[in-house]
Protein backbone atom coordinates (compact mmCIF):
# COMPACT_ATOMS: atom_id res chain seq x y z
CA UNK A 1 0.00 0.00 0.00
CA UNK A 2 1.04 3.57 -0.58
CA UNK A 3 0.52 6.77 1.36
CA UNK A 4 1.12 10.44 0.68
CA UNK A 5 1.87 13.26 3.08
CA UNK A 6 1.39 16.90 2.25
CA UNK A 7 2.64 18.72 5.29
CA UNK A 8 1.36 22.17 4.36
CA UNK A 9 -2.40 22.52 4.37
CA UNK A 10 -2.21 26.17 3.29
CA UNK A 11 0.52 28.16 1.56
CA UNK A 12 0.14 31.92 1.01
CA UNK A 13 2.53 33.40 -1.54
CA UNK A 14 2.93 36.87 -3.00
CA UNK A 15 2.26 37.23 -6.69
CA UNK A 16 5.37 36.68 -8.84
CA UNK A 17 7.19 34.99 -5.96
CA UNK A 18 8.41 31.38 -6.21
CA UNK A 19 6.57 28.57 -4.50
CA UNK A 20 7.28 25.01 -3.43
CA UNK A 21 4.54 22.64 -2.33
CA UNK A 22 5.86 19.65 -0.47
CA UNK A 23 4.92 16.03 -0.97
CA UNK A 24 6.39 12.92 0.59
CA UNK A 25 5.27 9.41 -0.12
CA UNK A 26 5.62 5.98 1.39
CA UNK A 27 5.57 2.74 -0.54
CA UNK A 28 7.07 -0.72 -0.44
CA UNK A 29 7.03 -0.94 -4.24
CA UNK A 30 8.04 1.29 -7.13
CA UNK A 31 5.58 4.07 -7.72
CA UNK A 32 4.21 6.56 -10.14
CA UNK A 33 3.71 10.09 -8.80
CA UNK A 34 1.25 12.78 -9.78
CA UNK A 35 0.23 16.33 -8.98
CA UNK A 36 -3.36 17.35 -9.56
CA UNK A 37 -4.87 20.83 -9.29
CA UNK A 38 -8.43 21.66 -8.32
CA UNK A 39 -9.58 25.15 -9.17
CA UNK A 40 -12.59 26.50 -7.27
CA UNK A 41 -15.76 24.62 -8.17
CA UNK A 42 -13.99 22.44 -10.68
CA UNK A 43 -12.74 18.87 -10.94
CA UNK A 44 -9.24 17.54 -10.69
CA UNK A 45 -6.82 18.37 -13.48
CA UNK A 46 -3.51 16.63 -13.98
CA UNK A 47 -0.57 19.05 -13.66
CA UNK A 48 2.24 16.57 -14.19
CA UNK A 49 3.32 13.03 -13.55
CA UNK A 50 6.45 11.02 -12.98
CA UNK A 51 6.48 7.53 -14.47
CA UNK A 52 10.15 6.91 -15.21
CA UNK A 53 13.22 8.55 -16.72
CA UNK A 54 14.30 12.07 -15.85
CA UNK A 55 13.57 12.93 -12.25
CA UNK A 56 12.70 16.52 -13.15
CA UNK A 57 9.23 16.62 -14.63
CA UNK A 58 7.69 19.64 -16.30
CA UNK A 59 3.96 20.15 -16.37
CA UNK A 60 1.35 22.62 -17.45
CA UNK A 61 1.13 26.25 -16.36
CA UNK A 62 4.88 26.52 -15.65
CA UNK A 63 4.93 23.96 -12.83
CA UNK A 64 7.63 21.37 -12.37
CA UNK A 65 8.38 18.67 -9.82
CA UNK A 66 11.42 16.65 -8.91
CA UNK A 67 11.30 13.00 -7.93
CA UNK A 68 13.78 12.25 -5.17
CA UNK A 69 13.83 8.55 -4.42
CA UNK A 70 16.25 8.74 -1.48
CA UNK A 71 14.07 11.33 0.25
CA UNK A 72 10.82 9.80 -1.03
CA UNK A 73 9.70 13.24 -2.11
CA UNK A 74 8.00 14.78 -5.12
CA UNK A 75 7.86 18.50 -4.39
CA UNK A 76 6.05 20.83 -6.77
CA UNK A 77 7.63 24.15 -7.73
CA UNK A 78 6.92 27.22 -9.78
CA UNK A 79 9.42 30.09 -10.13
CA UNK A 80 6.83 32.86 -10.34
CA UNK A 81 3.17 32.45 -9.37
CA UNK A 82 0.16 34.24 -10.75
CA UNK A 83 -3.21 35.04 -9.26
CA UNK A 84 -4.72 32.34 -11.47
CA UNK A 85 -2.65 29.70 -9.64
CA UNK A 86 -4.94 30.03 -6.63
CA UNK A 87 -6.24 26.49 -6.17
CA UNK A 88 -5.97 23.29 -4.15
CA UNK A 89 -3.05 21.08 -5.12
CA UNK A 90 -3.06 17.34 -4.54
CA UNK A 91 -0.12 14.99 -4.66
CA UNK A 92 -0.99 11.40 -5.53
CA UNK A 93 0.78 8.08 -5.85
CA UNK A 94 0.02 4.76 -7.47
CA UNK A 95 1.88 1.50 -7.56
CA UNK A 96 3.28 0.51 -10.92
CA UNK A 97 0.76 -1.79 -12.53
CA UNK A 98 -2.01 -0.57 -10.22
CA UNK A 99 -3.92 2.42 -11.49
CA UNK A 100 -5.60 3.28 -8.18
CA UNK A 101 -4.47 6.67 -6.93
CA UNK A 102 -3.85 7.47 -3.30
CA UNK A 103 -4.13 11.19 -2.65
CA UNK A 104 -2.62 13.47 -0.08
CA UNK A 105 -4.77 15.83 1.95
CA UNK A 106 -4.06 18.73 -0.38
CA UNK A 107 -2.39 22.11 -0.12
CA UNK A 108 -4.38 25.27 -0.64
CA UNK A 109 -2.26 27.78 -2.52
CA UNK A 110 -3.34 31.37 -2.03
CA UNK A 111 -1.75 34.10 -4.10
CA UNK A 112 -1.48 37.50 -2.46
CA UNK A 113 -1.61 40.44 -4.90
Amino acid sequence: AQSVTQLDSQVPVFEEAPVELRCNYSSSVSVYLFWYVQYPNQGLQLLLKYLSGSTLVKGINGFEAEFNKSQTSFHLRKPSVHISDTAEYFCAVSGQGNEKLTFGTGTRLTIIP
Partner: protein
Amino acid sequence: EPEVTQTPSHQVTQMGQEVILRCVPISNHLYFYWYRQILGQKVEFLVSFYNNEISEKSEIFDDQFSVERPDGSNFTLKIRSTKLEDSAMYFCASSEPSGKKLFFGSGTQLSVL
Protein backbone atom coordinates in the same frame (compact mmCIF):
# COMPACT_ATOMS: atom_id res chain seq x y z
CA GLU B 1 -9.51 17.91 -25.24
CA PRO B 2 -12.00 15.12 -24.49
CA GLU B 3 -13.48 15.21 -21.02
CA VAL B 4 -15.34 13.15 -18.48
CA THR B 5 -18.80 14.52 -17.81
CA GLN B 6 -20.80 14.05 -14.64
CA THR B 7 -24.44 14.73 -13.93
CA PRO B 8 -25.96 16.23 -11.92
CA SER B 9 -23.48 18.78 -10.60
CA HIS B 10 -25.46 19.00 -7.35
CA GLN B 11 -27.77 16.44 -5.79
CA VAL B 12 -29.75 16.93 -2.62
CA THR B 13 -31.48 13.94 -1.09
CA GLN B 14 -33.13 12.81 2.10
CA MET B 15 -31.43 10.28 4.32
CA GLY B 16 -32.47 6.75 3.38
CA GLN B 17 -33.20 7.60 -0.25
CA GLU B 18 -31.45 6.02 -3.19
CA VAL B 19 -29.30 8.17 -5.46
CA ILE B 20 -27.66 7.48 -8.78
CA LEU B 21 -24.70 9.54 -9.88
CA ARG B 22 -23.99 9.50 -13.56
CA CYS B 23 -20.79 9.74 -15.53
CA VAL B 24 -19.86 9.60 -19.17
CA PRO B 25 -16.21 8.57 -19.42
CA ILE B 26 -13.99 9.39 -22.38
CA SER B 27 -15.00 7.14 -25.24
CA ASN B 28 -11.89 5.02 -25.82
CA HIS B 29 -11.04 4.62 -22.14
CA LEU B 30 -11.15 1.19 -20.56
CA TYR B 31 -10.73 1.85 -16.83
CA PHE B 32 -13.32 3.68 -14.77
CA TYR B 33 -13.23 4.94 -11.22
CA TRP B 34 -15.21 6.65 -8.52
CA TYR B 35 -13.55 8.77 -5.88
CA ARG B 36 -15.09 10.98 -3.22
CA GLN B 37 -14.01 14.00 -1.24
CA ILE B 38 -15.72 14.83 2.01
CA LEU B 39 -15.54 18.55 2.70
CA GLY B 40 -12.12 19.48 4.01
CA GLN B 41 -10.70 15.99 3.63
CA LYS B 42 -8.60 14.14 1.10
CA VAL B 43 -9.83 12.60 -2.12
CA GLU B 44 -10.55 8.93 -1.39
CA PHE B 45 -10.69 6.00 -3.76
CA LEU B 46 -13.99 4.14 -3.84
CA VAL B 47 -13.91 1.68 -6.70
CA SER B 48 -12.33 0.82 -10.02
CA PHE B 49 -14.07 -0.94 -12.89
CA TYR B 50 -12.61 -2.74 -15.87
CA ASN B 51 -13.98 -5.18 -18.39
CA ASN B 52 -17.48 -4.89 -16.95
CA GLU B 53 -16.56 -5.80 -13.43
CA ILE B 54 -15.16 -4.27 -10.29
CA SER B 55 -11.38 -4.63 -10.25
CA GLU B 56 -10.79 -3.08 -6.85
CA LYS B 57 -12.81 -1.43 -4.11
CA SER B 58 -12.04 0.31 -0.86
CA GLU B 59 -13.46 -0.28 2.62
CA ILE B 60 -15.79 2.66 2.02
CA PHE B 61 -17.45 0.83 -0.86
CA ASP B 62 -19.77 -1.35 1.19
CA ASP B 63 -23.01 -3.10 0.24
CA GLN B 64 -24.82 0.22 0.01
CA PHE B 65 -22.76 1.12 -3.05
CA SER B 66 -22.88 -0.36 -6.52
CA VAL B 67 -21.55 0.57 -9.93
CA GLU B 68 -22.82 -0.22 -13.35
CA ARG B 69 -22.02 0.40 -16.96
CA PRO B 70 -25.52 0.00 -18.34
CA ASP B 71 -24.63 0.81 -21.92
CA GLY B 72 -21.53 1.64 -23.93
CA SER B 73 -21.20 5.16 -22.63
CA ASN B 74 -22.50 5.65 -19.08
CA PHE B 75 -20.90 4.65 -15.80
CA THR B 76 -23.07 5.02 -12.71
CA LEU B 77 -22.62 4.96 -8.96
CA LYS B 78 -25.67 4.00 -6.92
CA ILE B 79 -26.06 4.51 -3.22
CA ARG B 80 -29.00 2.43 -2.07
CA SER B 81 -29.89 4.08 1.22
CA THR B 82 -28.02 7.31 1.76
CA LYS B 83 -26.61 8.32 5.13
CA LEU B 84 -25.62 11.75 6.35
CA GLU B 85 -21.98 10.77 6.12
CA ASP B 86 -22.34 10.08 2.40
CA SER B 87 -22.43 13.83 1.83
CA ALA B 88 -19.38 14.55 -0.31
CA MET B 89 -18.14 15.51 -3.73
CA TYR B 90 -18.08 12.41 -5.91
CA PHE B 91 -15.62 12.31 -8.78
CA CYS B 92 -15.74 9.97 -11.71
CA ALA B 93 -12.54 9.27 -13.61
CA SER B 94 -11.48 7.22 -16.58
CA SER B 95 -8.11 6.28 -17.95
CA GLU B 96 -6.74 5.39 -21.33
CA PRO B 97 -5.71 1.83 -22.12
CA SER B 98 -2.20 2.37 -20.74
CA GLY B 99 -3.83 3.35 -17.45
CA LYS B 100 -1.19 5.92 -16.62
CA LYS B 101 -3.30 9.06 -16.71
CA LEU B 102 -6.65 9.53 -15.06
CA PHE B 103 -9.07 12.11 -16.40
CA PHE B 104 -11.48 13.39 -13.78
CA GLY B 105 -14.93 14.83 -14.17
CA SER B 106 -15.94 18.03 -12.42
CA GLY B 107 -17.77 16.12 -9.72
CA THR B 108 -21.24 15.74 -8.25
CA GLN B 109 -21.81 17.43 -4.92
CA LEU B 110 -24.10 15.13 -2.93
CA SER B 111 -25.85 16.57 0.10
CA VAL B 112 -27.77 14.16 2.33
CA LEU B 113 -30.22 15.87 4.66
